[in-house]
């Protein structure tokens, strides 16, 4: 049984939570030029590491807030809990974020608005 530290409610049993799978999957912008193959990497393909995994959880039976978790998929050790919209702060969490193939995927590149040219 995992003990998960909800950012709002504190330590609770895993049965109060739902796991939402891989975190930091950004949806490509509406006017993307992606091929079906590249779009499928956003829609269906998932990082599935043996080691540190960044994932989303929701405290379904509590405050119902979503948050992120860095967890080891071998030992189930929870490395850190951090808010939605933020990046992991621990070294292991950062490394896992960078190691994910998604960081170099076309779908993720297409999720960021083009930089405005400032004259």
């Amino acid at each position, binding site marked *: *049984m*995992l003990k998960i530290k909800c950012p709002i409610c504190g330590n609770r049993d*895993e*049965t109060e939570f*739902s*796991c939402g*799978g891989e975190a930091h999957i950004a949806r490509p912008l509406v006017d993307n030029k992606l091929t*079906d*193959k590249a*779009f*499928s*990497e956003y*829609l*269906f*393909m*998932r*990082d*599935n*590491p*043996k080691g540190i*995994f960044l*994932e989303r959880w929701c405290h379904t039976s509590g405050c119902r807030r979503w948050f992120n978790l860095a*967890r080891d*998929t*071998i*030992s*189930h050790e929870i490395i850190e809990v951090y808010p939605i919209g933020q990046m992991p702060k621990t070294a292991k969490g950062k490394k896992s974020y960078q190691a994910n*193939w998604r960081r170099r995927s076309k779908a993720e590149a297409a999720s960021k608005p083009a930089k405005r040219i400032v004259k």
Partner: protein
Amino acid sequence: MANKDLDRGSRALTQKSKRYSIFSLARNAASYHQNWQQAWRHAEPKSAYDAVIIGGGGHGLATAYYLANIHGMTKIAVIEKGWLGGGNTGRNTTIIRSNYMWDESAGIYEHALKLWEGLSQDLNFNVMFSQRGVLTITHSEHELKGMSRRVHAIRLNGIDSDILTPAEIKKRVPTINISPDIRYPVMGGFVQKRGGTARHDAVAWGYARAADDLGVDIIQNCEVIGLRRNGSQITGIETSKGFVKTPKVGCVVAGHSSVVADMANIRLPIASRPLQALVSEPIKPILDTVIMSNAVHMYISQSDKGEIVLGAGVDKYNSYAQTGSWPVPEHMAAAAVDLFPFLSRLRMLRQWGGIVDTCPDASPIISKTDINGLYFNCGWGTGGFKSTPGSGHIFADLIAHDRPNSIALPYGLKRFETGYLIDEHGAAGVAH
């Protein structure tokens, strides 16, 4: 649907002396069973093979067997990190059935069931395939209606499936409570009489022995640590026992599919989750069929040893630890006691978990990849055991001919680009 003139790969073993029969049993009994030959050689990797199968579970061994037997590729190896059948092959609840709703699924699972029906003879190894029937029960009016839709779809594909009334269920399973006043009243159900169970270890051992007899090298305790390629052509694999040259690699590693795919920079839609099961202490025969319930979410049968075998759904988060989380077996036991109150007095004997490769549409991936000579057979998720012979048969065909046959075609990775998913989540029942 499965092709009618199916090559089962049922040729006699090449070494007649190795055949198991009533005579060999009598002969060995005379020498106090001290002189049984080893079932397969302990091979060390050679420097090159025509094809290498990664993963020595049921699916991998079946692939190797059919490659050698039907396609004549005998210079091949099966590479296994641990021991044969030590992963999900030895960790499931051994249920076999083919009552899936979609046409594509009917094709693949019925193909497997047809192979199951003669497997012991084909392999000259008793896999203890027992067609004791798989009975799915329903607990509400709506579930009953959904069920009849499924049953009719299944029957249209020529697969046996019969709707049962509560009274008929009671006749088949005298221990079940069909009172309308209980928490989960049994409103009806359907049975696939050709479904049943098999001895999971025997499946791995039977395929291993038969493949070994045809010259396949089965290499245990050998981990794959890398894939070598030249441009877009696979050239070999790096293992803990050195480099092995090969133009064809078939990857059948279930929960570790993403790990191997990462070595080749291939993306998969797989999430690795623990699937748990448990057995009770052995008791006298009380349940002679398999019972499944979608609403209560569990499946139950009794093993030949007398243990009550229970299973349910996957754990809710990704994991590579072959154990699982405690709330899941607790749920399983609670659901089982809801249906069979007498189970509450039994003690749990063992609990275990296997890491299953779950796919977004709950259907497998049997596919070529962007790399020539690299093939994947994965994504079986929670329903791999029942398809072991079919999976190996089809995958061997894909590897030998480098093109998917009509059964494998819908299961390519391409479906995640086209959107032509084979969504068996709701359609397949609980233990798919």
